[in-house]
């Protein structure tokens, strides 16, 4: 057919389908279920299980539906006697060696083999000989248990690990009846994506260790949600037994995660039901202890302080939802009339707002789907496998499946190097120069591969580093090549925070604030200098996350009155005066905005501990206590207001984001129920005749007493797509083609590193030129006025000290001085010794690993043991100069702090060291001081 469509007949129904689609998919959308084990919509077909054999007219043999593309005029019969006979025979064959130990198998109740045997299998087996046996329950990794007896050799796990994850750690070995699935000898199955093999295993051969014997599927209630860790925002189902989340599984969304989720997202749910969760408000007593108290009293204490306070700093964490972000923004900018509010902690100072120079959006203009249609992808940023794992899968798919060319700019070898067309190994901070090289085509070999469509990806890579020149270069590249930009902030709530104006210079909807407030560093510096009356930490843990441990210690050491809203008694909470308990992601309705600005909805499943509450509710109650009644009773009220006040989000309809799926009028056919109309067995209606235990395209309801279906199918990946809000109504108008920012001459000079001056006050180099020269501020002049008319921007300037505040401070109990850094502070000269005595200064390039000591992941039992010990990665030449080799211990120092770390040799730019940011035992932020940190490494 001319339009790429073909017409075929399946079980007597005429269907029109696109050419080259697989018969099994087309049949499924018609509502004809063909049994299968090896076929998975997210992977290539191999047709090894022979379960989906169907009769096709004109073909002498039965054809596997999962490997047969539809052709015009095809006449297919899936319930033909011959096909049914083959299916029954195949199932009997598969069950020959299956141990049928369903009563002790975790998969029982949601097992494709079980359900399809009931539906399509023979009633009994003729096989009476002894079955093949293997050792049961091999623990092939800390997360996955393998039972080889149950395996039906469908290759799904092997294909996943090779095709999708790229970590070939599991394989089918031996031949014939002795074929078994096994990991390589002495090589554990340590993939960041190993959990997916559990979910796609059609039997109980691969099982989750944390979920082992914990529950039966019929005991679970479930709710769709979104992963609370990184900014990719993979949709998940949370599944709870007896009010405790016991399992998370990937929900498919073809726009975001396809069918996959990383192990951190899949197994990182334990923190929700951790015993350590805060359950009631705490107030610091005169005896310097926390006392559980009522919400009323705690709110009174906070609002009493806020009434008199003049200098308020608010730091919000990046794991909060979009509504929380709006509430924090409103509390700061409207109720408290301060712009000293920021959400960037680990990525402190990352200038997301400069992305707005490109398109008016302080964030991505590209979607993840754009990666797949891109001809070239430029990656400038951290290792996505460690920080944004599912984005790594999407990038990998784009490169290997769709043929996009990948150019990686990184000072250190990252996971993407293995699939990249070009790797530009630059100095730390030299990314800007390298990107400029691409913009202007200096390096012809690389620049020749910069094609169109181009997607430029940037994420803040090394905490504590000035990313300004890099962003300028990236934006210039995107502008010059008319490319789309994918901004990759680190955490689940990062982009929502920027969208909602939790930013010192942006109001909700990316409108520039009238007055520029202090960023995180500025707020902490003000606190350290005693120039802050009250510090609000809303889901923020600066002690762990902010890349300047000394500054944080001084900030808290100053005795600033601190209010914390948190899940856990973190180290920052230990410094607080009032603590409010917060509800976790599985306990609340909400939305996360992911790195492509897609809004996806969380549904509550369990109840929060004690009286813990959503941060937006806490903000609203604080505002109410200050006499500003926002009138919010529920989640929908917040969104009504967001729609009314944030222009970009005016059309976000959450009934659609949280949609229960479009009703699918599928009717499933089965050979067992007679149907008078077709003269053969057909049953109609959604779910009717579908294998038992399958939700069969039915709406996915919150609290539905059945978890996710065992089989994620193609159409399900389109059920909860989420919404990407519009861009600001008017794009940056009238800007002449702005030349890219001048090549940053000395972007990361050592003297810049030493300054302890807020970047906001002294923009350096290219920073200043962009801020004044590009239309960032001018372009939104028209935008800014309606926003300020709503009273969002502060009108008065911030006043100086007020004596009554000082008086109020005297009542604050003194903290124990254990965290005082004064004793360990060295002079700057001491930090930078000469190249002698086997010690040298290195530029610090840090970054998070997937399993680290974050507040949530460290409370997750299953993942805690996976976190690696801290190490220092050196260039081989540098190590040789220092007399260090792999596995040695090196003394690393900076900011007056010393630590002994294991040496690893890696492909990293000379003169730089990589130290993971937050591993158990030692936090790298303790040696960071100021912007662009430098550390000293020597032989111990």
């Amino acid at each position: 057919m001319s339009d790429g469509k073909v017409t075929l007949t399946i079980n007597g129904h005429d269907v029109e389908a696109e050419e080259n689609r697989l018969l099994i998919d087309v049949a499924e959308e018609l509502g004809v279920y063909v049994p299968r084990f090896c076929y998975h919509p997210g992977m290539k077909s191999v047709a090894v299980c022979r379960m989906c054999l169907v009769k096709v007219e004109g073909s002498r043999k039965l054809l596997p539906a999962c490997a047969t593309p539809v052709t015009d005029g095809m006449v297919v019969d899936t319930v033909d006697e011959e096909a049914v006979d083959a299916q029954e025979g195949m199932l009997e064959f598969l069950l020959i060696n299956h141990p049928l130990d369903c009563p002790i198998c975790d998969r029982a109740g949601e097992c494709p083999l079980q359900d399809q045997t009931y539906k399509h299998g023979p009633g009994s087996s003729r096989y009476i000989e002894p079955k093949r046996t293997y050792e049961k329950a091999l623990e092939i990794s800390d997360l996955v248990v393998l039972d080889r007896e149950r395996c039906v050799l469908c290759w799904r796990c092997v294909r996943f690990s090779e095709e999708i994850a790229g970590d070939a750690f599991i394989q089918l070995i031996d031949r014939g009846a002795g074929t078994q699935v096994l990991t390589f000898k002495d090589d554990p199955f340590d993939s960041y994506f190993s959990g997916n093999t559990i979910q796609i295993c059609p039997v109980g051969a691969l099982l989750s260790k944390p979920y082992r014997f914990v529950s039966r599927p019929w005991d679970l209630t479930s709710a769709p949600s979104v992963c609370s860790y990184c900014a990719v925002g993979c949709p998940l189902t949370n599944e709870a037994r007896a009010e405790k989340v016991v399992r998370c599984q990937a929900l498919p969304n073809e726009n975001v995660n396809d069918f996959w989720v990383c192990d951190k997202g899949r197994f990182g749910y334990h923190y929700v039901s951790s015993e350590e969760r805060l359950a009631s408000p705490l107030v610091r007593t005169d005896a310097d202890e926390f006392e559980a108290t009522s919400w009323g009293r705690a709110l009174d204490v906070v609002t009493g302080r806020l009434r008199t306070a003049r200098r308020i700093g608010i730091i919000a964490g990046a794991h909060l939802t979009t509504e929380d972000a709006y509430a924090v923004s409103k509390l700061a900018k409207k109720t408290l009339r301060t712009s000293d509010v920021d959400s960037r902690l680990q990525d402190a100072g990352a200038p997301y707002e400069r992305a707005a120079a490109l398109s008016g959006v302080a964030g991505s203009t590209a979607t993840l789907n754009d990666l797949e249609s891109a001809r070239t992808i430029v990656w400038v940023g951290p290792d996505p496998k460690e920080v944004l794992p599912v984005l790594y899968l999407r990038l990998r798919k784009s490169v290997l499946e769709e043929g996009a060319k990948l150019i990686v700019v990184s000072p250190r070898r990252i996971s993407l190097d293995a699939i990249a067309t070009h790797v530009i190994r630059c100095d730390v901070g030299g990314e800007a120069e390298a990107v400029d090289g691409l913009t202007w085509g200096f390096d012809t070999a690389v620049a020749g591969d910069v094609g169109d469509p181009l997607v430029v990806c940037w994420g803040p890579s090394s905490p504590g580093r000035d990313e300004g020149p890099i962003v300028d270069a990236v934006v210039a590249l995107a502008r010059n090549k008319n490319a789309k930009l994918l901004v990759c902030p680190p955490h689940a709530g990062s982009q929502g925070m920027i969208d909602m104006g939790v930013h010192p210079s942006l109001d909700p909807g990316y409108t520039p604030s009238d007055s520029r407030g202090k960023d995180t560093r500025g707020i902490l510096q003000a606190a350290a200098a005693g120039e802050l009356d009250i510090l609000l930490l809303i889901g923020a843990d600066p002690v762990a996350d902010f890349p300047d441990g000394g500054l944080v210690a001084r900030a808290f050491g100053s005795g600033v009155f601190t209010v914390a809203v948190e899940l856990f008694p973190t180290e920052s909470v230990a410094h607080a005066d009032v603590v409010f308990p917060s509800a976790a992601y599985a306990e609340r309705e909400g939305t996360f905005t992911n790195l492509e600005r897609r809004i996806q909805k969380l549904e509550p499943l369990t109840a929060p501990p004690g009286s813990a509450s959503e941060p937006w509710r806490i903000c609203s109650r604080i505002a109410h206590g200050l006499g500003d009644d926002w009138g919010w009773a529920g989640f929908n009220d917040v969104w009504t207001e967001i729609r009314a006040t944030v222009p970009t989000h005016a059309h976000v309809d959450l009934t659609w984001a949280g949609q229960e799926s479009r009703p699918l009028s599928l009717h499933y056919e089965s050979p067992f129920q007679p149907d008078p109309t077709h003269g053969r067995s057909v049953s109609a209606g959604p779910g009717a005749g579908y294998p038992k235990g399958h939700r069969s395209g039915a709406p996915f309801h919150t609290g539905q007493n059945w978890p996710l279906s065992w089989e994620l199918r193609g159409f399900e990946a389109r059920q909860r797509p989420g919404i990407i809000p519009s861009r600001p109504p008017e794009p940056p108008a009238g800007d002449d083609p702005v030349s890219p920012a001048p090549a940053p001459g000395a972007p990361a000079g050592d003297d810049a590193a030493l300054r302890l001056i807020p970047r906001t006050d002294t923009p350096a180099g290219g920073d200043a030129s962009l801020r004044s020269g590009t239309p960032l501020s001018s372009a939104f002049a028209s935008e800014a006025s309606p926003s300020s008319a709503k009273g969002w921007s502060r009108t008065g300037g911030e006043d100086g000290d007020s004596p009554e505040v000082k008086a109020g401070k005297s009542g604050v109990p003194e903290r124990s001085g254990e965290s005082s850094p004064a004793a360990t502070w060295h002079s700057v000269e001491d930090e930078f010794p000469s190249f002698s005595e086997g010690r040298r200064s290195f530029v610090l390039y840090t970054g998070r690993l997937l399993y680290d000591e974050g507040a949530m992941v460290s409370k997750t039992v299953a993942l805690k043991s996976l976190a690696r010990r801290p190490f220092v990665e050196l260039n081989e030449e540098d190590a040789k100069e220092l007399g260090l080799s792999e596995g040695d211990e090196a003394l690393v120092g900076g900011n007056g702090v010393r630590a002994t770390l294991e040496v690893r040799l890696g492909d990293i730019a000379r003169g730089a060291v990589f130290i993971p940011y937050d591993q158990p035992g030692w936090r790298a932020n303790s040696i960071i001081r100021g912007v662009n940190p430098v550390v000293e490494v020597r032989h111990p």
Partner: protein
Amino acid sequence: MALPEILNGMKTVVKNVFKKKDTVSYPEVRRQPFPRYKGRHILDRHPDGLEKCIGCELCAGACPADAIQVVAAENTPEARFSPGERYAQIYQINYLRCIFCGLCVEACPTEALLMTTEYELSGSSREQLIYTKDQLIIDTPIVRHWTTKKELPPERQVFS
């Protein structure tokens, strides 16, 4: 006028006064139920002492009254409760909910869960009627609240 009816009624009374009594003076005298009477459950053991229950939760799944709670755990070489990998860490039957239908016994794949003819289930609090694994396992004797002086066989024909 009503006299014939009254006499007719009294005839039935007088006739029954001289019949043998069908009631027994429970709890001193107790009639045993029929052997297939469905009463209180027990959890059986294998001859080697291991529990037959493997914690599969099929009884709980089959229970129409949602009276059974099972939480499974993994056997270890140090602490082995049942053959195989899985055993019931928590096993509870709530006799306030149980309707004695016996579907749980039918569902049990290892014939671990059985029903006795014991019907004397009472307690002074709701908690007492939630029987735990310790009470249900076969080696725990069934304790009665009263001693019975005489047990009558179930098949005793009263009407002779």
